[in-house]
């Protein structure tokens, strides 16, 4: 509230002799009106966040979509690996039966790969939900001139997770241009 903060000097108590009760009341009234206006503005911005829609619909949907993607990729990977293992371990005696088995398993691999189309659509929905979240939060942060707390994560479990990640160097996969290449690793090991 910069307008209110700037008035700090103006609201300093004056000597009793200088005081004009009417203008004091006017000043306080004006400041209270500004506070009320600011509160109304913040309330409007909170409303614009549509937080209920985010946490009741978009975020749970995104959560479910990602869960489905994990399941679909795991299931497809399992099917593809099972088919490949069957080919590798084939005990067929003749070329004809071996060919038949390979063709059948290759077909199973093609079928399993169809997961990509569906997971692509699911991930698009998650990307859209994240985009909405980012847009609304960014609008809200700039509308209320929000600054991040310097106290660190509010959630103690998250704080523990972050500390563990830092201590045990759990950085996860890096972007392609930031990740160290296998050749560079090999050079380190001489």
């Amino acid at each position, binding site marked *: 509230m910069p307008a209110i903060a700037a008035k700090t000097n103006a609201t300093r108590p004056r000597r009793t002799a200088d005081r004009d009760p009417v203008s004091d009341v006017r000043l306080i009234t004006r400041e209270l009106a500004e506070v009320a206006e600011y509160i109304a503005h913040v309330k409007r911005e909170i409303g614009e966040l549509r937080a209920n829609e985010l946490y009741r619909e978009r975020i749970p949907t995104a959560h479910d979509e990602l869960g489905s993607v994990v399941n679909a990729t*795991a299931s497809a*990977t*399992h099917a593809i*690996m099972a088919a*490949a*293992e069957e080919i*590798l371990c084939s005990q067929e005696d003749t070329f004809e039966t071996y060919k038949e088995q390979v063709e059948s398993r290759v077909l199973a691999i093609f079928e399993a790969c169809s997961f990509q189309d569906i997971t692509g659509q699911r991930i698009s929905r998650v990307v859209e939900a994240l985009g909405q979240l980012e847009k609304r939060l960014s609008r809200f942060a700039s509308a209320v001139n929000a600054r991040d707390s310097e106290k660190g994560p509010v959630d103690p479990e998250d704080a523990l997770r972050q500390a563990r990640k830092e201590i*045990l*160097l*759990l*950085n*996860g*996969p*890096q972007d392609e241009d*930031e*990740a*160290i*290449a*296998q050749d*560079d*690793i090999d050079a*380190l*090991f001489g």
Partner: protein
Amino acid sequence: MALDLSMPILVVDDYQTMVRIIRNLLKQLGFEDVDDASDGTTALAKLKTKKYGLVISDWNMEPMTGYELLRHVRADEALRTTPFIMVTAESKTENVIAAKKAGVNNYIVKPFNAATLKTKIEAVCGA
């Protein structure tokens, strides 16, 4: 020196798919005695009951990471010489340096191929 294909290998990864991939690759290379564990704690218990010729471990696991497992192995008198290869998606230079300082024998970033795995096993196990 040829690779000893009879040596027991312990694969440590919390993703069963990755365990399966590494198992199949090792099988293609001729290794038959392959065990697996889904985290560092289970791996350490297995290492104390059987003598392994090689440990191939992921980094990011719960509750004990591969990095912690490596440090435990190197701190244990009976296990400290066991060859240890880290196979991980952790691709920051600081991870590689930390693992090297902790005594890892080689480091492979995911995704990797059979040829890379074979080359590293040969380098570590003295083929």
